C-alpha cells in the first residue's frame, strides 16, 4: 500500500472531476467518522496492487502493519490502473459518485434491466435527464426510484438528446451494479 504519486493523483482527480465537478473538493476534504478515534479524520487515497482506494486516515494507519501480499481491500475502491497506466473508475465507486454527482440520468423501468446487462442507454429508455450535460461528461445513471444503477459517459449533450431518434445512444455504459453478479471475479 502506498500513496499515489503526482501523475497518478492527477489521473484520478481528472476522472472524478468528470463526474462530480466541483464537488471533488467535498470528496477530498470530507471529514470521516470511521476509525475508533472520536475526532473525525480525513480521507486519503492509497494504491494497493494497482487498485486505488479511498480510505480514511485512521484506517490507513492501522493497515500499515498488514503485509502487502496479505492486504486485499481498504475502505472504498475507486478504480484500477491498467497495465498501460490508464485509470478507470470501477463500479465500487458508485456510492461515492452518486452522492456527489452533477450529471444524472434516470431510466425508465423497462430499460433498467438492459442497462444492468451492460448495454448502453438509449434515448427511448431515458425518463429524466439533468440539464447542461455536455458531450463526454461523466453521467451517473439512476432508476426512477433514485437507486443508483451505474455510470457512463454522455454521448451527446442534453440539447442534442432531445433531437435524437429514440434508438440513439445517450449514455455510453462504463460500469453498472449488475457487474457484482456478472463479473464478480473481475472486480
Amino acid at each position, binding site marked *: 500500500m502506498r500513496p499515489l504519486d503526482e501523475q497518478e493523483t492527477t489521473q484520478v482527480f481528472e476522472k472524478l472531476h468528470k463526474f462530480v465537478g466541483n464537488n471533488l473538493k467535498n470528496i477530498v476534504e470530507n471529514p470521516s467518522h*470511521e*476509525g475508533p478515534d472520536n475526532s473525525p479524520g480525513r480521507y486519503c487515497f492509497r494504491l494497493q496492487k494497482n487498485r486505488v482506494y479511498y480510505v*480514511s486516515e485512521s484506517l490507513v494507519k492501522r493497515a500499515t*502493519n*498488514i503485509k502487502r501480499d496479505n492486504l486485499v481491500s*481498504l*475502505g*472504498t475502491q475507486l478504480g484500477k490502473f491498467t497495465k498501460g497506466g490508464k485509470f478507470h473508475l470501477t463500479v465500487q465507486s458508485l456510492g461515492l459518485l452518486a452522492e456527489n454527482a452533477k450529471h444524472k440520468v434516470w431510466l425508465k423501468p423497462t430499460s*433498467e434491466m438492459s442497462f444492468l446487462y451492460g448495454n448502453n442507454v438509449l434515448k427511448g429508455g431515458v425518463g429524466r435527464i439533468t440539464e447542461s450535460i455536455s458531450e463526454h461528461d461523466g453521467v451517473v445513471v439512476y432508476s426512477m426510484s433514485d*437507486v443508483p444503477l451505474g455510470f457512463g459517459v454522455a454521448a451527446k449533450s442534453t440539447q442534442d438528446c432531445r433531437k435524437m431518434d429514440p434508438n440513439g445512444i445517450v449514455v455510453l455504459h462504463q460500469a453498472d451494479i449488475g457487474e457484482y453478479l456478472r463479473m464478480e471475479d473481475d472486480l
Partner: protein
Amino acid sequence: MAGPKLSGKKLGKTPTKKKQKKEALPPKQVEKEELFSDSEGTDEDFQEKNDDKEVNSDSDMSSDVDDDPFAADILAADDDDDGSDARSDSDVDSDSDGDDTDLVKKSKAIDDEREREEKEGDEELQLNIKEEADDFRLPTAEELEEETHRPPDLSNLQRRIKEIVRVLSNLKSLRQEGATRKDYIDQLKRDLGSYYGYNEFLIDALVELFPPVELIELIEAFEKPRPISLRTNTLKTRRRDLAGVLLNRGVNLDPLSKWSKVGLVVYDSQVPVGATPEYMAGHYMLQSASSFLPVMALAPQENERVIDMAAAPGGKTTYVAALMKNSGIIYANEMKESRLKSLAANLHRMGVTNTIVCNYDGRQLPKVLGQNTADRILLDAPCSGTGVISKDESVKTSKTAPDIQNCSQLQKELILAAIDMVDANSKSGGYIVYSTCSIMVDENEAVIDYALKKRDVKLVPCGLDFGRPGFIRFRQHRFHTSLDKTRRFYPHVHNMDGFFVAKLKKMSNSKSAKSSVQSEEIQGVESIESSDQQNTEGADDKHSEQEGIADENGKLKEEVAVDKKRKRDVQKHSVKKGVGQNSSVTKTGKSENQLVATKKREKKKPPPREEIAKAREEKRQALREATRKAMMKKK
C-alpha cells in the same frame, strides 16, 4: 328301490348329456352337483329330488341340473375341491342308502363344509391380527445377511425404524425376549444409516446426542431445506421500504421473527431473489437466519475496533458494519484466497467503508494486528458443518472422527488467538463471540471449556433466549457449569440450521486462567485444602480436629458462604505465593488484586482487613467449640 336299475339306465343315457352339461355349467354348480350326485330314481324323480334339494339347500344353483350318480365320476376328475371329491365318492358309495338318510347326510355335509370354511376364515383373520399386533421382532443375523444381498427395501426399513422407536419408548413392556436396548439401538443405527444415507460415525454421534424420537425428527428436518431468508442493509434502506419494493416485484415475504428487526423470510418469488436490482444495489443480503445470531450476540457499538476472523463471504461482517453505522474499524480476515473476492465484492456492494480486508491464517493474526488491541471479536469458526446437512448432503458421508478432531484442534487454536487479541480493559467491550454451524459437542462445548481453562475469560449470556442451553455434561465430559449460557439451535426445533453460539468476556489481559474457575468447580477439595492451611496457621493438627474443622467449614460455608470462600481463596493464594495474608488485601500487586477481583464476580471490592480478621476470629471460635464438643463426646 328302483335305484340300481335306474342308475343302470341312466348310465346309458346321461353320460353324454352330462358331458355336455359339464362344459356348460360353471364350476360352482359343478361342485354343487357332486353333492347331489348320489340321487337315484327316474328322471322325474330326479328332477323332483333336485328341486327338493334346491329348496332344502341354500345354494344358488340353477334348476336345470340333471342329478346323476355318475356325474360325480365324470366331474370329479376336473374339480378343484378334493374334499367334495371325497364326499361325492362316499356319497356315490352309499348310493344304496335311503333317500332320507342321504338327504340328511348331504345337508350335514353342506353344513359341515360351511362351518369349516367359516372356521378357517376366522383362524386366518386371527392369524393376521396376531401377526400385526405381535411384538416387533428384531431381524436375525441370517435375515440381515439376506437383506444385504438384496436391493434395500425402503418401506421395510421405514417400518422397522418406526417400530424400533416405538419399542424403545417403552422398552420394558414391548421388548423382545433376550434383546437388549443395545441391540435395538444398533439395528436402528444400521437402518437409519442405510435409509437416509449417513455414514456410521455420524449416526453414532447423532444417536449419542438425541433420544430416539427427537433423532428421527432431526433427521427428517435435515432432509428438507430451510426457508430462504434475507437481511435488510440498514446502511442503505429500511426493512419496511425494502419489503414494499420486493412485494411489488412479486416476492412473497414476511418479517423473519420477532427477535430480528432486519430479517425477512421469502416463501416464494416470481423473480430470482438474488438478482433483483435492489440486491445489486446492496439493499439486502441473502443470509440464513442462523447467521444473524452471532452478530446479534456480539452487539458491536459505534466507534469500536472489531475483528472478524473468518469473514468470507461477508454476511456477518456487513451486518456488523451496519450495526456500527460505518464507524469504528473492522478487520475482516479470511484465510482462503478463493473466497476473498466474494468477501470484497460483498463489502463494496453493501456500501461498507470502515473495513480492512486481509488474508491471513487466523492463528497468526495476533502477531499481525497486535495483542490486546480489539474491542470485540467475532469468530465464526470453520467446522465440520454437521448442522447444515440440509444445505450440503455430502457431509452425511464424508465426515469421520479424524475430521472432527482436526476441526476441533483448529478451533481451539483460533479461539486462543481471538482471546489474545481482545483488550480486556476496553471501555465498551472485551467480548468474543464464538459460533459454529455444527452440532457436535467436540467442536462446541469442548472448545469453550478449553478456552475457559486456558485463559482468563468467562461466559456471559448471549442475549438469545430462544435457543437451547448448551451441554454441561455429555457422556464422559464434565464441562464448566457456566456453559449453560451458550446456546444451541436445531432445525427441528427452531427451523434454522444447526448452530452454536457462545459469548465470552475477557476478564484480564494475563495469559493464565483465573483460579476461581477451579475453585467454583471443586469446592470439596477446597475445603480440605483450606483446613490444611488453617492447621498450618497454628491450629491443632489432630485428625479428629481436622475433620471437625472440615465439618465446621461445611456448616460455616452455609452461614457465611461467600465471605468464607473469599477468605479461603485469599488464604490459599497467600500460602501458595509464600506471602503474608496482609498483602492479599493491600493493593500492591495489581495482578493479585485482579485475581482477587476477578474471583468475586458478584462482589466489587476485595474484603477489607477488618472483615478478614473477624472471619478469622469466628473460625477460631468454631475450632474451640469443636474441640470442646469432641472432648465432651469422649467423656
